Structures are given as C-alpha cells and as structure tokens.
C-alpha cells in the first residue's frame, strides 16, 4: 500500500496549494499587521501571535500572482521554520486532505521563474491539481527591497 500524506490546503488567486500538515503550527483568521518599511515587498508585515511577533509573507506577491483585491482580507497559515514561526498569507483555507503519495509529480522542466523554486510539484487529484509549496524556499527571501 502506498503511503498517504496529509496536506493542509489553501487557495491563492484561484489556484489550489498545499503544505505538509506537520509543518503547519496553526491557521488563523486575518490579523492586523504592522508594515515594515524598507523590507522586501513580499513581507507584508508583522503580526502579534499570542505575544510572539511573527512576520507575514504575502504569498501572492511571492509567487508573482495578481495582487489581492483591497477588500479581501487574507488568512494566516503559520508554518514552522528553523528561525521560528512565519505566517503565509493566503486567500482562503481549504481542508486537510489525505493524499496518496503516488499522485505526486514533479514540476515540468519548462516551468520558469519564481514558481520553479517555490513549487515542488503537483498532486493529481480527481478534479484539480494540488500544488505542493516548498516552505523552506518560500521563506528564504533576501532582505533587499524588491
């Protein structure tokens, strides 16, 4: 029997993404953010997570997707990294899915640009593709402003 993986899923500009559930610390609703001048534009701000200050990365910007409409408030997917928790800003939260690992296929070589590094590949689900996000690469942003 092939192993099954659990993925925490979310939506970004109509695309369906997922990260492995053990990397996710929590998922919470929109939190007020303090912007950080001079930081890379992918970093949208800092949130107060029960007394801990956590940086929030705008995934739309990171993946070079369209900007979020101003009346839409993002949700926070807080992931664990080596330097502590970091929040990923997403449009909507999906379910936690159990996926057969055989359904995974790596990104095609023709995939260019930012997505190349950030998306490990896709799971071929019945009616859609689940894009697997590489957390380590996603949070690895240079500190120079874009």
């Amino acid at each position, binding site marked *: 029997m092939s192993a099954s993986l659990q993925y925490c899923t979310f939506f970004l500009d109509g695309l369906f993404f997922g990260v492995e559930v053990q990397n996710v610390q929590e998922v919470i609703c929109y939190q*007020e*953010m*303090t*912007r*950080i*001048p*001079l*930081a*890379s534009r992918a*970093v949208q*701000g*800092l*949130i*107060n997570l029960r*007394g*801990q*200050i*956590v*940086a929030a*990365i705008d995934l739309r910007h990171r993946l070079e997707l369209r900007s979020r409409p101003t009346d839409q408030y993002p949700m926070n997917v807080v992931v664990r990294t080596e*330097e*502590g928790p*970091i929040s990923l800003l997403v449009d909507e939260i999906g379910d936690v899915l159990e996926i057969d690992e055989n359904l995974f296929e790596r990104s095609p070589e023709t995939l260019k640009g930012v997505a190349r590094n950030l998306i490990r590949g896709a799971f071929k689900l019945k009616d859609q593709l689940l894009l697997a996000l590489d957390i380590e690469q996603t*949070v690895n*942003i240079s*500190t*120079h402003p874009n």
Partner: protein
Amino acid sequence: MSELDGIISEFLVESYENLDQLDRDLVTLEKDPRNPQRLASIFRTIHTIKGTCGFLGFSKLESVTHVGENLLSRLRDGLLFLNPEITSALLALMDAVREMLTRIESTGQEGDGNYAQLIATLTRLQEAPQILLAEVEENLSLRDQALAEQVQISEMADESTVVNPSGLLQADEGLPCNQQQADLTPHAEPNSESVTSFSQSPKATQDTTSTGVCESSIRVDVRLLDKLMNLVGELVLARNQILQFTSSQKDTAFISTSQRLNLITTELQESVMKTRMQPIGNIWNRFPRVVRDLATSCRKQVRIEMEGKETELDKTIIEAIKDPLTHIVRNSVDHGIEPPEVRLAKGKPAEGCLYLRAYHEGGQVNIEITDDGAGINAENVKRKALERGLITRDQAERLSDRDCMHLIFLPGFSTAESVTNVSGRGVGMDVVKTNIERIGGTVDIQCQPGKGTTLKIKIPLTLAIIPALIVTCGGDRYAIPQVSLLELVRLEGDQVRQEIELIHGVPVYRLRGNLLPLVYLNKELQVENHRHECVVDALNIVVLQADDRQFGLIVEGICDTEEIVVKPLGKLLKGIMVFAGATIMGDGRVALILDVLGIAQHAGVVSEVRDRSLSELAAKIQDRQNTIHTLLLAGLGLTGRIAIPLSFVARLEEIPTSCVEVADGQEVVQFRGQIMPLIRLSQLLQCNDAIADQDKLQVVVYTANGRSFGLVADHIIDIVETTLDLKPSTRQHGILGSAIIQQRVTDLLDIQGIIRTFDPGFFDTCDVAAPNHV
C-alpha cells in the same frame, strides 16, 4: 547509580570553581610567594580535591593531585621556595586536573591521558635541592655560594620573562643579577618612577573573592533564570496593557490596584535583572593567568592592571564578550607590547602594562583595554589590507590614518608576520567586532604610534526591557530607545520656515549654537507623510545621539514614553539596519523599534569613519561620486561653456553696460548700495571667440560675508542637476576641471580661486561654509 551521578556532578562543579580559584591564587602567589595564608589555602584546596577523587574512585586524578599536594606541603612548610618552574608545574597540574574532569564530565571516566611526565616533574621538584638563599648563607661554603649564584643567574637567564619576585628578593639580598625589575617588588612605592605611568595600585592584585566567603548564596541553573526573565518580560507586557485600560476607567479601586501592580512589576523586573548581573571581574580574573602564560611563551614581560572589576553585566553579555575580551588581551600581549629589549631601547620600562577598565556610563557599560605597546602602524595595516585584497588601491589612498585602524576589523586581516597558535590567523578582530555588535555594542580603536593602543567597547546595559519614546510617522508607531534620546524640540509656525537652514541642500537646525543635521524619518523609511508637506505648521525634532554624533530626527507626532519589551526581528528582517527589533504595544499591536545608529548611517549623518564595515565605506565613496550636483551653466564666447555650482550663486543680474564704472583699476558696478567688482570670465579664461560688447551684461553674483563679486558671462544657459565625472584641470587657473554636461564639454569654475586672484584676503575673514567637494 543516579545518586552517585548527582555527587559526581556536584564534585565537578565545585572542582571547576576551585581550579579557577587556584589559578588566580597561584598567579597572585607568584608576586608574593611567602604569603602563608595563600599557600595554606592552596594546599587545602588540592587536598580536598584529592580526597574526593579517592572516594569516587578516580585513581589517576588521585595520584596526580597527591604529588601536587606533597609539593605544596613542602612549600607551605617553608622547605621549598616558589619559583617560576614550580609555578608552571603547578599550573600544569591544574590543567591536567581540568582535562580529567572534562573527560569525567563527558564520558564518566578519567580517560587514558598519560600524566607520568607531570608526576615525574612534580616529584623531582619536591626533592631537588632548590637554592634557598637562607640555606646557602647558613650552610654552604663560599665556593658553594658562588656556585649557587651561578646557578641562579643561569636560571634567571632562562626565565627572564614575567616579573620574578623570587629573583627580585634574592637580587635584593646581594646576588649580582642584572635585573631591570629590581625596583618592582610587590611592596614597591605606588609612585616609584621606574614603573610605567600607571601607578601600581596594590588593589589591582588583591583578590576580591577572598572576602565574603561566608555570604549566604545559592546555586541556580542559568536556564531557570532565563525562564524567569522571559516570564517577567511577559508580565511587563501584560502590565502595559492593563495600564492602557486604566486610563479609561473610573473605578478608583481598580485604578489603585493596577497602580500597585505597576509598582510591583517594576520592582520584580529590576530584581530579576539583578539576579543575572555578574561582576565583570568574573571574566577578568582569568586574565592574569592568560597574560602570564602568554608573556612567558612570547618572552615578554607584561603586567596587568584592572579597574572596575565590580562593574556588573548581565550574564548573557558576559558570555558574549568573554571570548572577544580574551582575544583582545592576547593580541595586546602578542602584537602590541614589544619585547623587553625593544622597549628599553625606546626608553620604556621593560615591563609592559595592560590596563583594563570598566565603568557604567549613560546606560551603557564601557570597557577599555589599553596597552602601552607599539601602537598600530597605519602604513602596515594599509599594506596588509592591500596585500590581501581587502581594499583597492584607490580606497587605500583615500583613507586617513584614523580610518586605517578600522581595517583590522575586516575578515581575513592580520598583520602578524607569522601565525602563532595564539593569533595571526586573521580570524580574530572581525569575529570580536561581530560578537560585540551582535549584542548591540560597539568597538572602537585608538592608538598612538609608539605609545600604545586603546580598545573601547560599549555595550547597552539591558537587553530585554528598555524605556522608549513612542513616535508616529506615516500613520505607524515607532519606538526610540530612551538611552539614545537627548531632547525634544518643537518648532511651530514661522519657526519651521526660519529656523531650519539649508547647507548645500542639507537641512540643519541651530541647537544652542551647534548645527544639528536633520533627518526626516518619513524619507528614511520611504513612507508618505500623513500631512501635506506644504502645510507644515509644526515640526517635532527628536534629538538623538549615535556614537558621538548628534542629529535631529523629524517625526510626525510624539506620543508617550513607555517601557517596552524588545523582541528580536527574525532572520527575514535582520538585514534592515534602521530597525533594532520589535515590540508589542499596550493595545496588542506590533511596533518597530528604531536603531538610532542604523538610522544615522542610513541617512549618512554619521561619517564614514564610524561605518561598520569597510565595504560600506567603499560604497559610500562610490555614492559620493554619484551625487547629484546642481550647476548653473553659462556660455563664454560662441562655443565655450562653464559651470558654476548653484550654491555659489546668490543672484543672476542683467546689468546695462553703461552702468559699469572703474574704480581702483577694476571694473565695478553699483549693486545694492555696494561697490561690486566685476570679473569678466571670458577675459579671465582667455576665450578667443569673445562676443563683442553687448548692451547688457549677464552677471552671476557671488555673495559672502556681506560682500559681493560679479562674474560676467556671455550668456546664461540653464540650471542642471547632474552627476559629475570630473577630469581635473592641469593647465588653466580658475578651473577645477572639465566634465561633459548636456553632451557638451563644460569647464567647472574654481570660484574661490578666481576670487582670490582679485582679492587675496577675501576668504580669510569669511565664515562661509566650505564649498562642496566636487
């Protein structure tokens, strides 16, 4: 078995402490070898260690300490006399014991080190007849005495390194030793002139730990203290939030209770911080031994003096600076202080002095390490940096001697001709700087060639909870650590326009006579101002201190002062130099903490000398070449073009030729009630295709010190903002150089030079600001 483990770990902790104490005792004893109490105490300590090792079954430890104990017992009883060889052997014994203890700690076993050599040495030293002068005088014949003298002299020759008190006392008693340190007995007058300029204070060699042995104290795991600190930090945050609510409450009982909570929290915070404070003497106490060993191996003589041992620092700071300080001390002995012969030749005392000083000032701990060695040779440093490709030849030429000092902080730098196991691998000073900066401190180095070097380290006292001023800018709140805050200035209405002056485009404010460079926070952060620039009816200037420089930060609004908990920024944001961290405000929102030095550097207020790395310096030099200059372009003749920096132009006038008069052999016009000399530029610069007399003259008026000069050009072309790539002038007087502006070759006028030709004394009485270096 766990009970035994507990006993063993207690044994280890106690023994480490005892060994540290023994190190200090032995080095002190060397200077005062007959001190019976000290000898007895050393003996007791070794005896204790021996006893416990025997009980715990560490036979190797036991045998080593047993021999040491025998040796010490003879010393204590006066049968033996302490000399450097014995001291070194005893110190080697300490090291061996430490080695075994470390092995016990990690593996539970003593390990299989071979200490036969050590044991043999210690045994030999017990039995070999040491030349004790008392015995010699009493028992031996003259011939034997001469022999004894000879042996002593050769021993002296071998061990002529550290101050040798035993040698001194024997010298005093008549041996014809040629000892320079003959004056330097432990009982010397504090102000004896043969000593270096630092008077030898007996206090410096006293052991502070000899007092307070019976104070009640308790050992606490450092992790527990850390946890306590964190909890107190959270409590402070919660208290801040409650205080926010009280401002909107009317219930007096609630208000008084929260006030009480406020007071208790503040006291608790202070007390917990104190638990983690340790005197810097804890680190310094190992230096006498380090210096002694190092001086011995380098064949130098170095004395160490300390002032401010009791200055307290937080434990984390102590941990962080332990290694850097050790490295600096080693550097001083290894590179700074010269060998005795060299020092004597220079007229210095053969013994070098290393002076450590620590004190609190302005919310910071200042640590100074001074040596009276050779200082740092700026040329050598530059050469080495060039050799290693750390700077370019261009940069090397621009550097002042003062700036050269900071080259030693570059990674990969070392002037040591040979790599010793002490220093010279070139990995030292940059690591020192990084470690100190990591805890928010600064390092500065000053030296006088031939006289000595001083390293100054400044570290903020408290890391976690600091008082801060909250300001607003662009609608957000920012916290400024109060330790950097000097004062607040508010300008209203007319003052805003009048009191902010521009010097070459840089806004400054006159604060009690001193010019204060101004920095607009919203510009530095590149955020928009919430109020329209034009409608500025009031300005808030926060006067800050960064390093030794002061500057004014212009912010939108000033809120309260608060105690905030500093939380570090994650790796994502660490590179942004203007922010030192973040904090959570009373209302739960996050605010960024400004790094005052970072803002000063970002705004270019602090000079390049203070920059943290030479690469930044190089970048700044590059930037200056790229700065935009505002120039007035004028034409001379049909094709010639000149440029004048706009800062030199007071007015542009069109003057009818008929108004030109002659006075004192010079062409002049009447201008605003003055006689203004005219300088015809086309004549001055020998333009061949000068335009024939025109009806009106285009005059560029330069005014300074109440006097004016008129420079006549043929026509005014434009005012441009451009970068300048200047080819310096070699031939024509009156021109600084040529550049390509608006695709035409243009000469840049040397206004000062031109005016000096006409009136040599013009600038002597001027207090005008120096022109821009182009």
